[in-house]
């Protein structure tokens, strides 16, 4: 293919636009606040998920380290030490949320998150609800997510007497990377079903059986409602649910490229995971939190701003300037220093 081939140029520019189209720092900053804030609340308020120290007291007979723990010879520490690490991790999540020493705090969230979240999976069974969080921590640790709406930004602004709010490609790729991670996860789940069972996954009675079986306390959490067996009594319903699930999982990567597909697959899969939680039991709250990366928070902020302006009947807004389209008031503001 020649370098000046228009088609090749088009693919290259589409690639660049997808990953590195300049964006304001606001969207990524909102994602940072909501992502780390939600995780802090989730792990802080639910000791079932957030208390890792109990694993320090479990017998070695039950220790079956996951691949990376084995390869890096990572041990299970004593309960007291794990409790300290857990405290540091929660502090790092809080600091990442408010954007204080963000490089250090996001890196700490990644390193300790890898250890603490990986620990339970080294005891008998690997669950699949939090693997993507570690990858999300990696992306956030390497991103410039604290360039806006952070304490770091305030301190830098005070020190340098200037604001730096350039629209940049630095604020696009982390969000796209999160889309990619989620797409890989769901597509992998769909491929696994087709590979192991083919279309029999839909046509067989499997989902019908699982809807009943999960009333027997087999999953990591019990179903929130006992309606599963009643759903199973309608012969066609589990098959429709199975077909919908596999369609949503396999089609999920389309959400990366199509705005219309995004409106179908992202809420569709979130609804599917909610249904799983209610009818079968396994919990996917961490996935729910990661869905926030699909929301265009600039757009939400603009709508809120417009609403507040309308309510107050004035031109200004308590939110102040700073978000909006790339070409708006601050898009290419250059630092004075």
């Amino acid at each position, binding site marked *: 293919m020649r370098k000046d081939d228009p088609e090749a140029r088009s693919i290259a520019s589409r690639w660049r636009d997808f*990953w590195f189209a300049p964006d304001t720092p606001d969207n990524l900053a909102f994602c940072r606040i909501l992502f780390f804030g939600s995780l802090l609340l989730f792990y802080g308020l639910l000791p*079932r998920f957030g208390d*890792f120290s*109990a694993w320090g*007291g*479990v017998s070695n*007979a*039950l220790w079956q380290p*996951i*691949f990376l723990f084995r390869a890096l010879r990572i041990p299970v520490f*004593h309960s007291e030490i794990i409790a300290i690490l857990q405290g540091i991790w929660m502090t790092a999540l809080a600091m990442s949320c408010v954007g204080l020493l963000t*490089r250090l705090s996001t890196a700490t969230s990644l390193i300790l998150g890898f250890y603490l979240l*990986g620990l339970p*999976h080294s*005891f*008998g*069974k*690997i*669950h699949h609800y*939090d*693997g*993507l*969080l570690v*990858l999300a921590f*990696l992306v956030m640790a*390497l991103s*410039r997510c604290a360039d806006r709406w952070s304490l770091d930004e305030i301190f830098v602004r005070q020190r340098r007497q200037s604001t*730096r709010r*350039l*629209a*940049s490609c*630095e604020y696009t790729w982390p969000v796209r990377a999160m889309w*990619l991670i989620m797409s*890989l*996860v*769901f597509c*992998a789940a769909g491929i*696994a*079903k087709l*590979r*192991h*069972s083919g279309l*029999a996954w839909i046509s067989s*009675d*499997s989902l019908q*059986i699982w809807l*009943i*079986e999960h*009333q*027997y*306390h*087999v*999953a*990591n*959490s019990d179903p929130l409602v*006992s309606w*599963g*067996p009643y759903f*199973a*009594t309608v012969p066609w319903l589990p098959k429709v649910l199975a077909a919908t699930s596999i369609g949503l999982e396999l089609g999920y990567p389309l959400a990366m490229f199509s705005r219309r597909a995004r409106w179908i697959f992202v809420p569709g899969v979130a609804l599917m995971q909610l249904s799983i939680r209610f009818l079968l039991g396994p919990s996917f709250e961490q996935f729910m939190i990661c869905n926030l990366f699909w929301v265009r928070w600039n757009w939400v902020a603009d709508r809120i701003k417009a609403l507040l302006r309308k309510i107050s009947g004035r031109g200004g807004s308590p939110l102040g300037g700073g978000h909006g389209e790339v070409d708006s008031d601050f898009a290419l503001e250059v630092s004075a220093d």
Partner: protein
Amino acid sequence: MSFRRQKLPRMIVAVTGCCASIWVLFATYFGPQIVASAYYGKSARLLNSLISGQSTHPLSHYLEAWRLISFEVLWGLLLLGFAAVIATRPTVQSAVWGERAMTQEQARYLTGTRLLVIYIVLCVIVGGSLFCIATETERWPFSSYPMYSKIQQTYSLTQFRLYGVMRDEGAKEFPLVEYRYTQPFDNARIDASFARLYAHPAQEQLLKEALRDFHSRYEALREQGRHSGPPLRGLRLYKVVWTLDPLARNVNDPDRRELLAEGHQDNAQGRP
């Protein structure tokens, strides 16, 4: 800026050197004494609890373990110091986090090592995922996400399940299916863990140890008031089989149960 470029790395080297020296002195002169006193139960409670195999291992075993640990900690300290010095380099910082002060050109186009770092991260994410999908392996945090992928053909269920044997009430049994009794283990993890131990060549010893562990944790949680279950004499591991009822009415009434192992915490031995 000059502090960051010149003094900070030197300061990190000095701090690392001091920490490493202090650690070497501690590990050589004080560590073995602390290990010995913990071995004989004469140290702080936390340190004493770290050594529990006095009946099977001599003191020299723990001193050797201490020597290995102290070397690993020393290496860790030096590595951390080295990483910190590297992280203060402006070129490394701009590669890992981007330029501190972006020009318009840098904001619009990423180039050089920064772009390379981003592509490496994306390659790790895609490569790790595709590897697991292709090989159907679990390499947490990567996975092929195989849950619920194999079709279920029969309306029957087999589970490894723990039953508590009450200390009173005529040694009645009840299934430990509530998380508060078995935490931090959930039911899926209990089934998978005991299935693995049951298939192990040293199953008898491992199952006994695992049951002892579950029992002592159950009692500890009960004494802390974290559940209101009855005191237990011990635990039993059963392989339980059900024929699934369309409305799950036989959850507490399985078709058959096969006793696989029985165990109890050490200090519960001989209790009625």
